[in-house]
């Protein structure tokens, strides 16, 4: 049973609820109408249920399309197998390493998708579980810390940035802590500049931390091409401080994020 047979009036159209909700899902309504629908969805449980059902109908169409696609590929494979069995086997044998095969499958699966709106993988989603604010665990007494270090150790990120900007001489640690402070304010673009500058220091101080947080900043800002080699480096170095944070599956998913 439809929720209501009454048409719902909008500025320019008379729509039934179903039609209205379909247009809402397809983003075909103008902004005031979108807002009006959202308000109704908050107030009317029955409308929300209808919306969920319509979403499901769209999903069903997508799955049906996927099923038909797989079926047609399989039919084509069988046709070719009959023609030339050897060439089919050759394709599989060329991929000798399982890991390569697995990565290739996953990449191809998502890269080949037409409707990207269904891909929930995003760089931000991958970033969130990896990011944790760096904590300064100094063995030095509080009075021996520089003002910037002191502010940072107290998690006073605003003051850390202020001190950096108001002083002229900066150490590698200053750059690093200020970068982290920007990340705490969700400003990864700013943070990138500080991490990059600190990495130029030949002493290698905070190198592992800088690489990890720079990679995360790239990830946050969706600069996947720059993030990837850094994460791969961390993953391939068992002695890297953040080696355990970057596993094979993470790297695969990184390849699946839409560029």
């Amino acid at each position, binding site marked *: 049973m*439809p929720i209501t047979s009454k048409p719902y009036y909008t500025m320019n159209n008379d729509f*039934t609820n*179903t*039609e209205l909700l*379909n*247009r809402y899902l397809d983003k*075909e309504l103008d902004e005031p109408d979108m807002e009006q629908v959202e308000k109704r969805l908050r107030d009317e449980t029955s409308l929300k249920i209808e919306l*969920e*059902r*319509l*979403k*499901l*109908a*769209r*999903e*069903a*169409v*997508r*799955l*049906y*399309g*996927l*099923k*038909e*696609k*797989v*079926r047609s*590929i*399989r039919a084509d*494979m069988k046709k070719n197998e009959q023609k030339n069995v050897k060439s*089919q086997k050759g*394709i*599989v044998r060329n*991929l000798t390493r*399982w890991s390569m*095969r*697995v990565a*290739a*499958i*996953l*990449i*191809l*699966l*998502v890269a*080949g*998708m*037409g*409707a*990207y*709106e*269904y*891909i*929930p*993988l995003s760089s931000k*989603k991958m970033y969130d579980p990896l990011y944790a604010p760096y904590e300064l665990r100094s063995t030095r007494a509080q009075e021996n810390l520089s003002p910037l270090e002191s502010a940072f150790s107290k998690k006073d990120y605003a003051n850390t940035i202020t001190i950096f900007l108001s002083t002229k001489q900066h150490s590698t640690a200053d750059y690093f802590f200020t970068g982290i402070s920007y990340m705490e304010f969700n400003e990864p673009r700013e943070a990138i500049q500080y991490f990059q500058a600190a990495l130029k220091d030949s002493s290698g101080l905070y190198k592992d931390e800088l690489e990890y947080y720079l990679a995360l900043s790239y990830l946050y800002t969706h600069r996947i091409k720059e993030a990837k080699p850094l994460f791969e480096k961390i993953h391939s170095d068992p002695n890297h401080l953040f080696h355990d944070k970057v596993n*094979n*599956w993470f790297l*695969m*998913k990184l390849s*699946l994020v839409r560029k």
Partner: protein
Amino acid sequence: MDAAVRMLYGSYFDFLGIYVQQHSGSDADAEDVFQEVIVAFIDLVQRDKFRGESSIKTFLFALNRNIWLNELKKRKRAAARETKYEHEQSTEDPGVEHYIGAREGRQQLMEVIGRLGSVCQQILLAYYYEGLSMKQILEQLKYENEQVVRNKKHKCMKKLDELIQSDALLANNLKAILHYEQ
């Protein structure tokens, strides 16, 4: 997509097909189950629900086994066999368990799409599966203008919604499917 599906078949079909064949299934059953495995797997990857905690091989094996056992149960074969396999149907992956819980409903949903007319199928698949724009669909289907296609699409969605609502079996399973989709 083509290459990935071919690779999945090339890499895993023989291995997984044997399981079905060794558990009362025919060649055709092995084909059907594997096709469902592939569709479910692609769907899970694209939804980011395949977390990679298990290897693809392990995951596909669990999907394949559980789909086949679920199918056997559905077919209501010999009670003894059902009892025998019932205890095996524990899943080690939440993604697989989730899928199996909503499997019947999903199958019913697929059948409903099959009951739509061919024109509606074409339009809805072009828009919601292939992600084509109204302009591209217009070029393919030769309608008068984009608005006509858009209106047709809405009518088709309305029809689909009515079919879903009028299917009593599906209505019973909607909750499970909605839970799966979230």
